[in-house]
């Protein structure tokens, strides 16, 4: 479960060796039958002319990256991240065509693809080295705590559209898989440090070494301190933060047959945090700005056994703990996840992957307050999942069909089935056409099941509090997605990737008013007007994502992207819900990006990235254009100096606002930093 291409590779393929192996070894006839052909003719005895006429089997996806992938995939490499000047994973994700990355304040981001963006965006699944990092609390991601040593990231694979067939619930609008390098590829000492206007100071240190011939390890530690964003009038927003993190990874590789990986991280962060919370006493609103603390850790073990190039088994176990202590939420969460995947070929052009998974999560919400509460305060959930996927090479490498489904059982809605079918047609090495129809669901989050969120207080009389309530009969949100894409290498220097989609959503979350009731606690007595989470909204969204790459010269590369999105949300006639349809205006209709990377003489690299993001009418945020620039100088392999400017085209601009919980409006400022790296 390493990646998306490998995800789409592995994921579309790791699965089942035990069964297979047992079957194979219990069938001596099979062994013998194959002994005859087992002495393979010695290929080296063939002449050159004969060799180039030997027919080869179809290529496995591992060797054949995203060009033939049957979905909208983008890969951000470690090198892309370095050259972008990004200092966080959300910043790195800004490079991905079709993703909508909006910074809410210094430590909060709203990230989604294909619409429905929100601070609590809930349709994107995010994994780090196979570990799910979205929180079942609201089915979204706390981006402030998702980090690692950026230099150790091998790549970030982003699938837009449903990945539910393999990845399971919540992979509705996309999957982001962050994959770090193997320990073997991070040997030696790497140290860097820097600082600037928003990045007030940061330092990263990693050391990689060898324990035995096939066993490598690395340890890292990092720290950063980031400045406040500003309010529209230019004052500090009181959201500065700092975080320290340390971790390790060790890999044992027995040739190519068995791989064992152990890895883990620990982190701690202090955040300045401000909320505006309605209250029952005058002035009926209060500004809470208490420091928040976040901490957590995880440990993961993974064993991969390769039976052959086409068959492998992977077993993975991880434990993850997160704690979030703010004036609104006081949560501790523990997760244990066990995952098995097996991939093997059957028949000549047919591959099967299957997998089993179990996840246990326990959370404890000890911070119940009038603004946000849960009943019960602690809860355990069990998630059982399995998937089966088959891939047929229907026509000599030209047409490939992938069929599969995920079967899941969760504590909220019971069984969920998420099937999908994908077809690729690759008439030649330069063109790929793919299409897909799939179903995905977004299962209820904890807050939708048993949470309570205060929305507004009106002084009255009577004194009234409008609160949003979770609902035990809240169902999963459903998507049927239709996708069509085309990739072409028009020329050695030009490639184009177009993905289009039509998404049909049903049972989306909306709110239904309940019967008002009187509540005495907390005082003073007040009338509560409840709005319960129900599944009454439907939607259609459609759009296109275009990415173009042009490499006129070895040392000059251009990348451009354009994303178009339309969303139509529908509530039933007479619905009292005035919130949910506003999601139409929280994702930009148009986004465009242009990036140029130039290798100048004397080992100087220049990267310029511009982006345009359309307005967000719901929040009254205007469209903006901005630009990042990075100038790096690498006099040799050991030393690098870089100067980075971010959001250069204006003093400050807003990118997003928070929804359910009110956070003061914050704007993102122009920033500069410098960084020095050494490597031994």
């Amino acid at each position, binding site marked *: 479960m390493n990646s998306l291409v490998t995800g789409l590779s592995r994921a579309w393929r790791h699965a089942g060796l035990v069964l*297979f*192996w047992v*079957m*194979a*070894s219990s*069938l001596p*006839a*099979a*062994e013998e*039958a*194959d002994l005859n052909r*087992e002495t*393979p003719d010695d*290929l*080296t005895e*063939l*002449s*050159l*002319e004969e*060799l*180039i*006429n*030997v*027919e*080869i*089997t*179809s*290529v496995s996806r591992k*060797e054949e990256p995203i060009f033939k992938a049957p979905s909208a995939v983008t890969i951000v*490499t*470690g*090198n892309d991240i370095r050259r972008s000047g990004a200092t966080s994973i959300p910043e790195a994700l800004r490079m991905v065509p079709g993703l909508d990355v909006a910074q809410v304040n210094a430590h909060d981001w709203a990230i989604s693809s294909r619409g429905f963006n929100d601070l609590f965006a809930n349709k994107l699944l995010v994994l780090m080295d196979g570990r799910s990092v979205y929180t079942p609390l609201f089915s979204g991601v706390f981006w402030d705590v998702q980090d690692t040593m950026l230099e150790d990231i091998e790549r970030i694979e982003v699938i837009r559209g449903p990945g539910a067939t393999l990845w399971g619930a919540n992979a509705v609008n996309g999957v982001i898989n962050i994959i770090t390098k193997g320990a*073997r590829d991070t*040997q030696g000492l790497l140290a860097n440090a820097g600082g600037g206007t928003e990045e007030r100071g940061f330092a990263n240190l990693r050391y990689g070494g060898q324990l035995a011939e096939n066993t490598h390890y690395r340890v890292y530690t990092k720290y950063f301190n980031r400045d406040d964003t500003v309010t529209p009038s230019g004052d500090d927003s009181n959201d500065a933060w700092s975080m320290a993190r340390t971790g390790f990874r060790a890999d044992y590789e027995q*040739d*190519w*047959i068995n791989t064992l990986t152990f890895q883990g991280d620990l982190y701690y962060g202090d955040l300045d945090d401000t909320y505006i919370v309605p209250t029952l006493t005058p002035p009926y609103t209060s500004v809470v700005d208490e420091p928040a603390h976040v901490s957590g850790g995880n440990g993961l073990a993974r064993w991969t056994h*390769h*039976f*052959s*190039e086409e*068959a492998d088994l992977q077993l993975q176990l991880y434990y993850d703990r997160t704690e979030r202590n703010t004036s609104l939420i006081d949560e501790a969460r523990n997760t244990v996840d066990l995952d098995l995947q097996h991939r*093997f*070929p*059957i*028949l*000549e052009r047919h591959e099967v992957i299957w997998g089993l998974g179990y996840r246990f999560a326990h959370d404890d919400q000890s911070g119940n307050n009038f603004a946000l509460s849960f009943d019960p305060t602690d809860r355990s959930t069990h998630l059982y999942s399995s998937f089966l996927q088959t891939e047929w090479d229907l026509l*000599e490498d030209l047409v490939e069909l992938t069929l599969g489904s995920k079967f899941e059982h969760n504590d909220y809605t019971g069984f969920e089935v998420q099937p999908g079918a994908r077809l690729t047609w690759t008439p030649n*090495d330069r063109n790929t056409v793919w299409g897909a129809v799939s179903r995905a669901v977004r299962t209820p989050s904890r807050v939708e099941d048993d949470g309570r969120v205060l929305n507004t207080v009106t002084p009255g009389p009577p004194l009234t509090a409008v609160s949003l309530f979770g609902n035990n009969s809240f169902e999963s949100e459903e998507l049927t997605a239709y996708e069509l894409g085309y990739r072409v*290498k028009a020329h*050695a220097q030009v490639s184009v990737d177009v993905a289009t989609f039509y998404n049909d959503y049903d049972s989306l979350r909306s709110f239904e008013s309940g019967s008002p009731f009187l509540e005495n606690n907390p005082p003073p007595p007040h009338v509560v007007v409840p709005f319960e989470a129900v599944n009454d909204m439907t939607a259609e969204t459609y759009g296109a994502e275009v990415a173009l790459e042009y490499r006129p*010269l*070895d*040392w000059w590369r251009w990348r451009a992207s354009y994303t178009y999105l339309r969303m139509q949300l529908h509530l039933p006639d007479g619905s009292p819900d005035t919130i949910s349809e506003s999601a139409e205006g929280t994702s930009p209709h148009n986004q465009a990006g242009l990036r140029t990377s130039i*290798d*100048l*003489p004397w*080992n100087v*690299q220049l990267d310029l990235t511009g982006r345009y993001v359309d307005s967000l009418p719901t929040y009254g945020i205007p469209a903006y254009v901005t630009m990042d620039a990075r100038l790096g100088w*690498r006099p040799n392999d050991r030393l690098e100096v870089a100067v980075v400017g971010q959001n250069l085209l204006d003093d400050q601009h807003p990118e997003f606002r928070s929804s359910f919980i009110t956070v003061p409006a914050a704007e993102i400022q122009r920033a500069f930093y410098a960084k020095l790296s050494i490597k031994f």
Partner: protein
Amino acid sequence: MPHCLPSTQPAPGRSPALWHAGGWRRTAGWGLLLAGLLAPSLGAEPPRHQYEVKAALLHSFTKFVQWPEACLQDAPYPFVIGILGKDPFGTRIDLVLDGKTAQGRPILIRRVDSIEAVGSCHIVFFGAMEPEREQRALKRLGDLPVLTIGESDTFVERGGAIQFIRVQNRVHFRINLQATGDAGLRIDPNLLKVASEILQAPHSNKHSE
């Protein structure tokens, strides 16, 4: 002028991974059995894995390329094939080339971690890696007597010597004579006859990291 870096020490033979081979055989056998049952008209000559064929081609190339005398004088030393970047062969190359010789000496397959270490190889196969890294490695090897072989899209345009391409489920190759010339390698015309494409134009590699 091409010059030779200090040559590799004679290395102990690599033992082929028996476990792996067994697993592969079992898998192949089972697949074949099923194929036999369900598709009786399967063709007589089963297709080979592309990396078996590519391993054999690496061996074959050694018969058509002349390295400078200076690089081959250390007679008991092995002929070194380096694999840089992600190794796509697995154990296939070890099995196919087990016990084979090249230019009269035993073949040593070496997985190379760093660009610095590839200079002592006679052949360097470029597995998957970041384009910038590939470019740096090609630049570094530019005029060393090393036959560079790769698979990335414009490998020979960017200064590589031989690039494998896939043509109708067969492995063919393109060749860059400018690169082999710079490296001081002499190419037998019989190799050129079989190549899908021969590049003569000068390549540019002056700008890179």
